[in-house]
């Protein structure tokens, strides 16, 4: 593989992971505020279909994205009503919504299967695109991809460097404390779940209007579920979560490329392999929190066990303490 090929691959990985970035950042915000939104995959599908349909009818990409974000927020609103308002299980509601939205997208999206639609236009950035190496990898994409680059530091900055972000994290850690300090817990949780829903909606449309243009049944092929896993194993930290997204993008690209190199292996293996590999990597990264493994590492000779423990402790991050627990006013 020559340098040119490597650069093309890198650019493809960065672009291909963009929808995952939107979805995982949305879910990170939602879960940091203490709410689990398991409907992610279904929501992405429904938003992807809606965005595509609106794009087809209006011939306007932007309106497609707005509609997708709207659908994401609508589904999030249902979750909020049932889980925050009526205090029913977030897990159960999320699952049911995921199934419902998946089937709705197939049913309502029937007229749009395999018809041409609109797409996000490529928009290389003048001057920067001519930079050696970086220009080709970073600056020859479209606005959606650039936005995904900016979203990660933005979410990190919001969560860890702003007053509102601190309050948001407090909601996920101990809502009763936030309440005792005068924070309006439920309205804020509603806000952040809706914001997360909008980002997940955009993620769905990013497939149908850009990276996998067009619409078909189960168009995103379970990517929403992997996004959920990446958020958890990424420790709810935007940088680590983003790293997980790009890693998954790389695995998928690698699988596609290998397919043509080794033609006598069934194609299904290459389609599934990235998912299995991703789970394996995520488990390894988070192995440090397993008590059995910790005991096992403790028994290693000291010069070996200490650095291993140190690395695992750095990798290990705790979930928001009140994740998934509905807040009840005392």
């Amino acid at each position, binding site marked *: 593989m020559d340098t040119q090929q490597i650069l093309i691959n890198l650019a493809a990985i960065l672009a291909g992971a963009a929808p995952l970035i939107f979805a995982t950042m949305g879910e990170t915000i939602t879960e940091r505020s203490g709410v689990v939104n398991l409907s992610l995959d279904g929501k992405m599908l429904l938003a992807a279909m809606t965005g595509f349909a609106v794009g087809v009818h209006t011939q306007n990409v932007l309106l497609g994205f707005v509609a997708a974000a709207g659908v994401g927020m609508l589904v999030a609103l249902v979750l909020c009503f049932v889980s925050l308002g009526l205090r029913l299980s977030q897990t159960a509601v999320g699952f049911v919504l995921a199934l419902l939205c998946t089937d709705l997208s197939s049913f309502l999206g029937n007229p749009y299967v395999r018809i041409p639609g609109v797409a996000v236009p490529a928009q290389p950035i003048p001057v920067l695109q001519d930079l050696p190496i970086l220009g080709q990898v970073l600056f020859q994409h479209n606005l959606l991809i650039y936005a995904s680059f900016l979203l990660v530091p933005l979410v990190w900055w919001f969560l860890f460097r702003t*007053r509102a972000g*601190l*309050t948001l*994290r*407090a909601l996920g*850690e*101990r809502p*009763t*404390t*936030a*309440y*005792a*300090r*005068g*924070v*309006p817990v439920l309205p804020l949780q509603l806000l952040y779940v809706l914001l997360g829903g909008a980002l997940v909606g955009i993620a769905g449309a990013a497939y149908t209007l850009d990276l996998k243009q067009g619409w078909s049944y189960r168009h995103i092929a379970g990517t929403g579920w992997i996004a959920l896993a990446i958020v958890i194993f990424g420790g709810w930290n935007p940088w680590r979560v983003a790293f997980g997204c790009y890693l998954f993008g790389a695995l998928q690209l690698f699988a596609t490329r290998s397919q043509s190199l080794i033609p006598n292996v069934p194609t299904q293996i290459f389609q599934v392999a990235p998912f299995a590999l991703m789970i394996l990597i995520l488990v390894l990264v988070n192995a440090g929190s397993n008590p059995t493994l910790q005991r096992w590492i403790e028994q290693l000779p000291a010069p070996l066990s200490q650095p291993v423990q140190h690395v695992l402790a750095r990798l290990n991050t*705790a979930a*928001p*303490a009140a994740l998934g627990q509905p807040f009840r006013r*005392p």
Partner: protein
Amino acid sequence: MDVQIRNLTKTFGSLRANDAISLSFAAGNIHGILGENGAGKSTLMKLLAGFLQRDSGEVLLDGQPARLHTPAAALAAGVGMVHQDPMDIPAFSALENFFCASPRRALPSLAVARQRLIQLNQQLGFTVAPDQPLARLTVGQRQQLEIMRLLACGVKVLILDEPTTGITAAQKTALFAALRRLTAQGETVLFVSHKLDEVAELCQTVSILRNGRVVGPQLAMPQPQAELIKLMFGQEGAPAPPRPTTAPPTPASATPVWQLNQITVREGALTVSNLTLSLPRGCVVGLCGLDGSGQQVLLRLLAGRLRPERGQLLLHGVDVTRAPYRAFRAAGIEYLPADRMHDGVIGALTLTEHLLLTRKPHGLIINRADACTQAETAIAAYNIKATPDTPLASLSGGNQQRAMLALLSAECTGLLFDQPTRGLDVVSARAIWQRLLHRRTEGTAIVFASADFDELLDYSDLLLVFFGGQVSHLLPCATMTATRLAELIGGVGFAEVAARDG
């Protein structure tokens, strides 16, 4: 800021936690609120802080009616509360906790917050470093942080709920000095406690609650202690401590409940090694030492929750060194951990349901009526303030502890108790001990860990002193004094009593 409370009422189900309470607190003073556990002190304070919503009545601040329906409203009106279990966020640093959800005009930026925190630390003689993770702070420091946070938010009425539970003597001195300084600046401090001496030392007035009612409105201090006790506990006053009679003579031939032969046991960084010990029937053994010196390790070993690395453990003469926890339970060993809510009881379940869980099941179907009767019997026998259908989480500390005692099986032969009366008032504590001593006369061996010297000296037959994982031999309690015990715990002269390696 003057605080006036008029006819404040709050009920939980059928329980009237606060019944038409009327009190008034003048600005610039420290006001004590006394009462035994479950008297309604915390509820009243939470109503003032907007944390709970009142059923009826009103509160006037400086003569103006105030709507304290949420903590936000209370804070805006200048009322702030430091809860008994500090309301902070363990995952954050001290500074983040200080800054979190503070009003923008008080602390416009994190940099300002840092300065303000350092400044308040100096001003009040507190010791909270801004960048410490909260998990590394002691309970006392977390409380200091909460006080500083509320002051930074501009609170004019500062409520402290049992602030001296779980803090060191030095922190208590610093706290009291800081509170006096604050009242000199015009703050109103409401100091909730069940400890008479602290209220006498600190407060200008004291109000006494009993069973949700005011029985002594803002009495000027000093008051004779006997009078206060009478008001707190009713006409009969507090009962005398049920001092144990001398230990019933155990025949030398009788097998001890626990027999430890050269046991080495490890938990985390703490190792207790080479321990040889026998704990007889009908005997109360007190475990003392600084927190985390090995008392809990021994308790968990005796309970079967922790396996020894070396050595042999006999229970009623049977080798149980490698036996599972349920073998210990079957042999009549009961373990009551210190953190009741965390691993003692299941908060959402009722007393009836707890009884159903602990008793041997008869068949597959629950006999609810029978269990309910049992619960009613337990409630009457242990004087628990609850109905059979009250979730345990909504009981007061003393009532939870009594409920846990009621759950112990009658055939219990060995009882392990970590901090049996922590956070309980005198009367609740004595009631608990009356029950325990009753069990002891029936032949149960009781082993308990405590940080309270009086409790250790009043109720133990034998004492074991722990010092950094080292253990003394069994010391007879009758010849022990508080001074000597304090020395031993600190390691002074510990070598003389240390158990010889076998």
